[in-house]
């Protein structure tokens, strides 16, 4: 495991975000282990590529109806980048409704490639600067579960997910 990946996992741990690692062959099994059903998701081919397997091999309902989304406990999406020193995940906002799947659920399971974990926030914003200037678009830099301190003390799970689980996909050896 590289230095950045190690820092990433430490950061996630400090945020109370659980982590498992997988390779392309085991990623669907790790997803199945990480979800609490009912689960919905967005297919993983955007950053992982087709070789990483498909959510069709898991109990996750891909491209659910809005009603199914609202009934779901878990949402599974990819992150396009990770941020090593903060444990942040860069979530995309595409026409496949990844924003809804990652937000309107209690548990968010995020899959990110180890190679996409950048060392720090500076590199991350720089990468987004280039992406937005090249192709436009939007992203969410998500760090830990949603939270509020507005009700007198810190509560995890405000409008968004209460728990986050990250699956880091390393290159198969």
């Amino acid at each position: 495991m590289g230095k950045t990946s190690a820092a990433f996992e430490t950061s996630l741990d400090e945020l109370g975000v659980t982590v498992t690692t997988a390779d392309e062959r085991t990623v669907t099994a790790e997803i199945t282990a990480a979800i609490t059903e009912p689960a919905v998701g967005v297919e993983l081919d955007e950053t992982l590529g087709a070789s990483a397997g498909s959510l069709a091999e898991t109990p996750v309902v891909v491209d659910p109806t809005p009603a199914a989304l609202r009934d779901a406990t878990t949402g599974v999406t990819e992150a396009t980048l990770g941020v090593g020193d903060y444990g942040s995940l860069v979530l995309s906002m595409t026409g496949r409704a990844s924003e809804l799947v990652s937000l309107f659920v209690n548990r968010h399971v995020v899959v990110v490639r180890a190679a996409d974990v950048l060392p720090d926030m500076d590199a991350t914003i720089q990468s987004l600067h280039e992406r937005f200037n090249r192709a436009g678009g939007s992203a969410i830099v998500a760090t830990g579960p949603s939270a509020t301190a507005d009700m007198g003390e810190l509560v995890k799970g405000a409008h968004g997910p209460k728990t986050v689980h990250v699956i880091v996909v390393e290159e198969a050896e």
Partner: protein
Amino acid sequence: MSKADELRHLMRTEGAAIAENTQGFNDGRYDSVADLEDYEELKQAARDIKEDAIERLPELLDELTETVEETGGSVYIADDAADANAYIREVVDDRDADRVVKSKSMTSEEIEVNEALEADGVDVVETDLGEWVLQVADEAPSHIVAPAIHKSRESIAELFNEQFDPEEPLETAEELTHFAREKLGEQIIDAEVGVTGANFVSADTGTMALVTSEGNARKTVAATDTHVAVAGVEKVVPTVADLHPFVELIGRSGTGQDITSYVSLLTPPVETPVVDFTDDETPLSAFDNDRAFHLVLIDNGRLAMRGDDQLRETLYCIRCSACSNSCANFQSVGGHGFGGETYSGGIATGWEAGIEGLDVAGEFNDLCTGCSRCVNACPVGIDIPWINTVVRDRINRETDTSAEWLVDGLTPDEEDEGAPLQKRFFGNFETAAKLGSATAPVSNWLADTTVARRAMAWGLGIDPRRDLPTFERETLRDWVAARDSVVTDPDRRAVLYPDLYTNYVQVERGKAAVSVLEALGVDVVVPDVPSSGRAPLSQGMVATAEDHAQRVSEALGPYIEDGRDVVVIEPSDHAMFQREYEKLVDESTFTDLAEHSYEVLEYVYGLVENGADAAALSTGDGAEIAYHSHCQQRTLGLEAHTAAVLEQCDYDVVTSDVECCGMAGSFGYKSDYYELSMDVGGRLRDQLEADGVDDRPVVASGTSCLEQIDALLERHPRHPVELLAP
């Protein structure tokens, strides 16, 4: 209600929750920024970006407008609140919306868009949990980041149970949050228009950054098809890359979080499909994303602030709340006391003066004591005390004065006839001190008589519960003039600056300083130098302060040229030479004095580091003491020097870490603020009376601090230099 009554009421009803929360944020800030290796570099980068953006604002607004329109959005630059509201009402009306959901936005509160939309019969729902609590309670925010900071969990539970009558009474924060989430969740998915603020907007791509933690801003955008973002024109930055330092600093500086849960970087209209949340047949991706986006940028006085050399810095503000949380007075009264129509905390004076006018800023501006603890906390390096001083000066000049006859003899500075009586008295304390000393001890006896105290309370607003300074008949300069130096072959030569208090009131610390310096081989002179101008500056009498600064520079200049260092005992005067004079005298004069002046214990530290023999000083033999540094001294980074010298001289030192003692020069003497001053002081008292500290003799660097500690404790405090005198 009088000012004192108003503040007393706030402290009693909201003070406990405010104190706990703001101090928690403030402690969190110290911890969080300590983890940033490049904290100072990030602050400088943030500052540079803001300076550049405001400098190039018209051009950036043009670029932003072009990019947003290219990506399918609309930009409207509104002159004022009414203009902005008219536009937003039209958007909402065109969409035929019954409900507007909002995420937290100070700018939308500034323009009071909720009231404007509600007048049209639109249901406006705040989705930030804190804002929603206030909407239900019909109360105003008390903090720019955590708006319901003044409400305890118990009071929120009581409010919800009363308003909504849930089946099971709500009690825990978790239950309250869950209840609000469910209730608001239903309203969000049923709304047509989502209103957000924007923390930053990049001109290159039209990307806006929204810094949030609850996820409500994400839902507000995702679940509605019409997005209205409301922001001040000052929120534009040149590029996406420029967001970097702000993303790292904003959460840390405010609530002490390394980063908030979500930083949304949106280039609207977003691609997320607009779904019907009741649909159980159509897959999410089959819905289209027919979305509208309106960026409403608000001037409302900002462009005039941009042209105002003194208020311009306000526009660099990123609304992080560091100046609120680090402010000792804010920690006691919160934003309902220390705030205007919309904004609160130290920087609010700039915002309210620029947006609402001096009358609104004048309602709370006195609560900035100039302690400067916000200066280093501000992620964009705004000189917030200076903005408060300038606005106070402008308010003074606008306000009519009365009873001028009483103050005539005490305020010879004719250029400041604009300042109110009380401010002129404190601002010209030099005159009172000279007179008091010349006639001591009669002046002290007279000043303490009931009749005199009543007259002071009535005419000058000096609180009768305060002990007045006792003037010494023999001043420090008299004492020095009557003795011979013990140094024959000096290693260094210095001017000991005879600040007002050291010269007339706390003469003992001046004598101690002379002895200490001479023991370390320094030739000391104590010439006649005017007072620094700190007193008039605190009262907003900038012209008088400039005059002092000029005369002080002229008096000290020849000594510096002659190779003497300037040693200053009173930290608030030292801070004048190091910080405020930059605004009051020309650059080379400022630099010359700043480079050659030292706080007395900083100087002792330097002497010993450079080979002077500390053994010549009196030592403590391990004696336990408590040290309270001075707010402005800490801002200059000079607290550690005193602690180090005391430790070197074999004292066992514990140090307080409250932001300010609460006295703050004349502040604590004023009837309006006496109780607030004592409330702030209570936090210092708690530290000095903590287990293991409660029997330690107390030393403190500042005159005000010494007076305040004297009032707070049985123990009589001294200046640290008095411990070291051989």
